[in-house]
């Protein structure tokens, strides 16, 4: 051992971590040490053989244990009761298999000495067993008589004392232990023999106290009766005492530490108190130390009053023990020692009294570190022949070690560990700090992420409520609009839809949202019907702030595909999986779990949108400008037109074979169109007839209908005449003509002329005519919806028209029924139906 340093000699590794609660190390008979780690086991460690000799298996976690004075019996307190184990049993079982591992001894209920619930601590005083337990309203100190003959296990109750619990909130942790200690009146006259001093077992249970202190604290009666006094420290901080053999004695409170009492001990405070302790020490969990001494005989005023000195040492205190002059305690991370003697030289009388009345903390020395970490349990210190103080300790990791303290020289506190050990412990500490730091940051991150997620989910919920709110269906704050445009890619023309998702809501669309667009042709050619008719496009996006918009583009149709009009159903799909799991969990959106879809608006792309304009002059001669640079395209257009012509059955292609007309009253138009172009010069309105036609065509081609705008804005300026030529998506050439028509209406009252505009659709392709007609009608329908309700005067004008139409309709009905009658060939039937259809489209009613 190095000079001036304390040495820790490891005795055993129990190899298990010690549970907080009641770790214990206690010397028993001979060289046996009882170790309890807070679990169900009690280890019997032989200090001689340096090995665990036996293991006692108890039915419940061990709370406390004590050894009888004759070192024959071990009493162990569990939750269910107190068990009594005879040492002879241990020695037998130990010797039988000395070579092998520790003997295991199962302690069954046969060993039960006292059946009591919740015993917190126990203490043996002669033949009396004391237990302390907490009931819901009081602390109960119960006395049992242990039977003299070793056969019987059961103990009889002698009596019990109770002390009311102060307030349930104060003590908080019920797990913390109570401390029990027995002190007795010391004999002053008789000088202590060295044999008595070394008897550790006796001193533990009958700690002799200086008579003056004893009488001051516990009264004359206890002193006269020579009664042992039980001191108990409660987790609520109270220090209580009970004179054991005094008739009518009660459990009384001596003092309160105001923090859980961890330790009570007695120490010789002065050099003169060789045999008996002149100072009681109580130590609280948070490091409050209380030294209780008798007032000095020298100072008259102090006489008759016990002197309570309080102080604080750095806590938290795990365990402690005391020898003649020093208090040793462990904070878990370090073992410290505190000198208790109030300087044997110098401070006397006056000075001492001043100090006692003045700063009490100053009279406590400062603790010095012994640099032993992890100690959770200590046994009473012993002193070997060389004068070294030896402590038996149990560390938090289950290591039993003997700590030898050097003989105290003149200078104290020079105890150091070897530098390598210091380095190791520093390294351990640093790595532990690193671990904790890392764990903390991970936890912090997780918490932050969760908070973020919650916020986002809140947004999602808001959006969902907004979109599922059935009350206002027409104008959703999140909606799509689109524009179409032809583009050419890989020598193939295709109609692209640029769809813009606009967020007018106050909420952000974030991770997890997907814009889903379903393209569905309203009608389609029979051969296309076999394929999957609807096409789904989904566009996941990351964030869309309020006021922002997202543009995506998708192909609607290729050139030559005539499956117009096409509806584009827009919806927002929220997927919880992609929201939580990020990108990699890209589950199919039709998966029911974790996904829900919120419909937005529906867009319609019709024939007009898909119309490609060509200049009317070049209709016959040149091919459309888009395809002029592409001979292959021309060829295909040519071929397809040929084919279409052949299919029509007639020999030559008829560029304007079919036509349909729509008539709109200029009054209706004027309202809308004037409103539209109110800002430009008023000259337009002067040259009304022509501009009406032009502006109607312009409007037809530019109007944003069904949320879809046409992409050919550049062509708009070309519309100067009332005739527009264009190419339908099925490559058929179409011609749109607008002209002004005056309708004379013969009326009884007055001749009235009504100006109307007629739009004529002509094409060689019947499909194109139908589609365009439908598209034009749709536009005008919206016009009608927008137009204010006018006087019905002009309705009269219609009457004759209506009559004619009615007549015509009758004829047409006749034709249809004829066509559908039996005996007609299918070719004939088709022709008739086509004709009727043509007639229906040709003689339109005026829309007003």
């Amino acid at each position: 051992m190095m000079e001036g340093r304390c040495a820790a000699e490891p005795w055993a590794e129990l190899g298990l971590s010690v549970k907080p609660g009641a770790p214990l190390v206690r010397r028993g008979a001979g060289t046996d040490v009882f170790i309890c780690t807070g679990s169900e086991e009690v280890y019997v460690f032989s200090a001689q053989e340096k090995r665990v000799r036996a293991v006692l298996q108890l039915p419940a976690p061990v709370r406390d244990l004590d050894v009888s004075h004759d070192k024959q019996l071990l009493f162990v307190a569990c939750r269910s009761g107190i068990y009594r184990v005879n040492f002879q049993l241990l020695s037998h079982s130990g010797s039988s298999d000395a070579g092998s591992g520790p003997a295991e001894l199962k302690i069954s209920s046969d060993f039960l000495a006292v059946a009591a619930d919740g015993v917190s601590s126990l203490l043996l005083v002669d033949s009396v067993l004391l237990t302390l337990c907490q009931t819901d309203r009081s602390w109960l100190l119960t006395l049992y008589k242990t039977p003299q003959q070793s056969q019987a296990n059961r103990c009889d109750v002698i009596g019990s004392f109770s002390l009311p619990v102060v307030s349930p909130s104060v003590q908080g942790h019920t797990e913390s232990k109570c401390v029990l200690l027995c002190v007795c009146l010391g004999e002053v006259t008789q000088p202590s023999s060295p044999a008595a001093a070394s008897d550790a077992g006796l001193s533990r249970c009958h700690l002799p106290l200086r008579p003056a202190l004893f009488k001051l604290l516990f009264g004359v009666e206890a002193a006269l009766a020579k009664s042992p006094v039980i001191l108990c420290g409660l987790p609520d901080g109270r220090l209580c005492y009970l004179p054991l053999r005094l008739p009518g004695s009660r459990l009384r409170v001596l003092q309160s530490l105001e923090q859980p009492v961890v330790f009570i001990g007695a120490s010789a405070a002065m050099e003169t108190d060789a045999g008996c302790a002149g100072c009681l020490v109580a130590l609280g969990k948070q490091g409050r130390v209380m030294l209780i001494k008798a007032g000095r005989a020298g100072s008259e005023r102090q006489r008759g009053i016990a002197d309570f000195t309080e102080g604080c040492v750095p806590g938290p205190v795990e365990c402690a023990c005391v020898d003649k002059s020093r208090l040793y305690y462990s904070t878990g991370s370090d073992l410290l020692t505190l000198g208790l003697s109030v300087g044997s030289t110098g401070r006397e009388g006056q000075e001492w009294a001043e100090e006692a009345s003045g700063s009490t903390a100053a009279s406590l020395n400062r603790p010095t570190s012994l640099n032993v970490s992890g100690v959770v349990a200590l046994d009473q210190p012993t002193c070997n022949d060389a004068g070294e103080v030896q402590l038996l300790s149990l560390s938090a990791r289950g290591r039993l070690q003997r700590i030898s303290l050097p003989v105290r020289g003149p200078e104290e506190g020079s105890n150091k560990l070897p530098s390598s050990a210091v380095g190791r412990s520093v390294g351990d500490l640093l790595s532990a700090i690193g671990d904790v730091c890392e764990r903390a940051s991970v936890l912090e991150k997780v918490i932050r992420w969760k908070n973020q997620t919650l916020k986002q989910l809140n947004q999602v919920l808001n959006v969902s409520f907004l979109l599922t709110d059935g009350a206002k269906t027409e104008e959703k704050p999140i909606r799509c609009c689109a524009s179409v445009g032809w583009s050419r890619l890989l020598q193939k023309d295709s109609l692209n839809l640029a769809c813009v998702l606009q967020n007018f809501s106050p909420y952000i669309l974030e991770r997890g949202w997907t814009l889903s667009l379903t393209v569905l042709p309203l009608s389609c050619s029979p051969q296309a019907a076999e394929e999957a008719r609807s096409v789904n496009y989904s566009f996941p996006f990351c964030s869309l702030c309020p006021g922002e918009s997202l543009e995506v583009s998708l192909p609607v149709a290729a050139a030559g595909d005539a499956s117009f009009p096409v509806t584009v159903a827009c919806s927002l799909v929220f997927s919880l999986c992609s929201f939580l799991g990020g990108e990699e969990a890209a589950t199919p959106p039709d998966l029911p779990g974790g996904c829900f879809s919120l419909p937005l608006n529906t867009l319609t792309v019709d024939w007009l949108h898909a119309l490609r304009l060509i200049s009317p002059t070049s209709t016959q001669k040149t091919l459309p400008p888009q395809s002029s640079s592409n001979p292959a395209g021309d060829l295909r257009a040519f071929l397809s037109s040929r084919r279409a012509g052949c299919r029509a059955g007639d020999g030559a292609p008829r560029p304007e074979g079919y036509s349909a007309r729509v008539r709109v009253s200029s009054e209706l138009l004027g309202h809308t169109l004037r409103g539209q172009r109110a800002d430009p010069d008023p000259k337009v309105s002067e040259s009304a007839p022509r501009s009406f036609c032009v502006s109607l065509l312009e409007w037809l081609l530019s109007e944003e209908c069904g949320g879809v705008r046409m992409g050919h804005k550049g062509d708009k300026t070309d519309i100067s005449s009332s005739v527009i030529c264009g190419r339908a998506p099925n490559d058929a050439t179409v011609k749109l003509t607008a002209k002004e028509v005056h309708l004379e209406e013969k009326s009884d009252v007055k001749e009235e002329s009504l100006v109307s505009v007629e739009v004529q659709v002509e094409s060689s392709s019947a499909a194109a005519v139908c589609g365009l007609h439908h598209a034009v009608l749709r536009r005008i329908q919206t016009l009608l919806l927008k137009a204010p309700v006018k006087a019905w005067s002009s309705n009269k004008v219609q009457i004759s028209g209506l009559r004619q139409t009615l007549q015509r309709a009758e004829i047409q009905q006749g034709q249809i029924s004829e066509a559908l009658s039996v005996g007609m060939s299918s070719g004939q039937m088709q022709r008739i139906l086509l004709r009727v259809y043509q007639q229906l489209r040709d003689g339109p009613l005026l829309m007003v």
Partner: protein
Amino acid sequence: MMSLLAKWTRENNELAFNCKQQNDELNRDHNNLFSHRRCSSDFHKLLRKLQGIPPHSDHAQLELSVVYNACVCLTALSHFEEAELLLTQAAHRVLELAGEDRGTSDPSVLWRAALKSVAGTALHRHVLSLLCLQWGIWLAKSCLNPIKEFQEEMSLLERQGGAVWDDCRTEAKEKIPNIPRLVLDPRRLAELLKICTAIVQGAERLNEGWNTLSALQAAAALPAPRALIAYTHLLSGSCLAHMNRPQMALQCFRRALETDPRCACALYQSTLLYRQLGNVQAEIQALRILHSTLLLPPTTEPAPAAGRLLSPSLFLCSQSLGSLLSVPSALSVLHSLALKCVIHDRVSEGVENYLDLLAALRSEDQHGVTANTLTAHAVVSTLPKLPRLYLEAAAALLMARRPADCMALCDEVIGTILDLLPDKVLLEDPEDGSVAESREEREEAESGLVKLLWAAAAYLLLGHCYAQQEDWKQAVTHYTRCFNLLVKVHCKNNAFSPQVSAPDKESNQGVDLCVLQRLKGISLAGRGISFAQMDRLREALRDLHLGLQALPEGVSAGQWCGEVLWRLDRRREAAACWEKTWSHTCPPLAEALPVYAQELQSGPLLDPTELRSRLKELGPL
């Protein structure tokens, strides 16, 4: 359903069997507690299973039996609240079975309804037995009103119940497995409860000042354990004592003792009565027997059928009964016995008792608590403070002319107290409320005064001892020490002089001051006598005068004052002094004051006849 019923019945029967067996095996207190706890939890578990299904007539019998068993166990554990809850629940379920549960909360209405609903069916006796338990719980909680209400049902229960249960028993013998067993025969329970009710009611009425003799005498004829019968006799005796018929009361107490020799409370009541009658010898005798009774080891009482599970003490916890049954601890009894002996001229006996008492206090078996065997009533401790006890013992030893032993005791007291003595005790006038003084200060002063008086008394006794040994010098020293201690007491108010000759019982301080004054007088007188023996007559006369001033009725001081005057040849004064002394009658020792504060006549005595003859010689004044 039937198989389940059979299974449950078997479970109940096994539990009941176990419970009974454990009871037979272990009759010790805490072990019983342990097994009861397990039993009650087991029964409770079974009951929960049973009550999981709505009440059904098929297994109602089983269910009620299990409720009964569980409640018996709970009652044995004194968990009355839980037991009552179970009982109420069971009553509600019985009503539910009959389809007439009106959710009443009044227990008596509830039970009446429950009994009515099962009238005439096999369930009737089960409900009766549950009611019987409820009765016990009411009794234990000292709710006597519902018991009065149900008096008729109770008697009906006993009369009819006996027959029904007999039927049940014969029935049970026929087909044992199908009948749910009970841990305790309800008839035994009813018997036990009846006598307990009679006792508790008797005590209550006695407390209220009613005459309950007839009821108690009727109860004495009931079949019951001896201890309970003894209680009825005891109560009759108390009743008679209240009616001022002490002899008849004593007869009753004697009968109680004949019934149960361990009925310590009867003995105690007798001693009180003897004291009241002034029969000292009988009182001493009774105290002696009482003490030996209390010292008897607690034997297992001859357990009656019901007593094994349910101890009668469970039901006998009413307050007025408690005060009647309370008995002082053995040590207190021994002390009163010793004191009585010493005061009434049986000094040697008293000394023995005192020595026994001290030995008991020193022994390791003494633990400040004395468990009463039968009832858990509070044990009254009338034991004085230990120093006073020591001093009393010392005084007794002195009277028995064992000065050495007396000195040992006194030395011990002095050794213990001496370093705690205050330098000065300042007493406030207790009547003078104007002086604001903190409670603590007053308490401190009082405890200081008490310690001072103890120490002074110890010195006084030491002085007496030396005087007895005729070591006059030592005697003077110790009397002086005593006096020096006594003068440390100062009274703040000069007008308030503690010239109280008779103890003022109202306040402790009054007694203390009286003791102080007496000690002063006695110690001065003792010193005077010692001086006189040393022929230092001047000092002797001074001290004796002062002693007489402090304690005018001091007999030895008066006599010796006369003697010293005589020796100083002041014969006339001596004669006057003697005459004056003889005019006081020598007071016998009293219990109110500590023995050591009275004149023990232990010192050198003067023969009054000789003095009178001297007076005669002197001739008339």
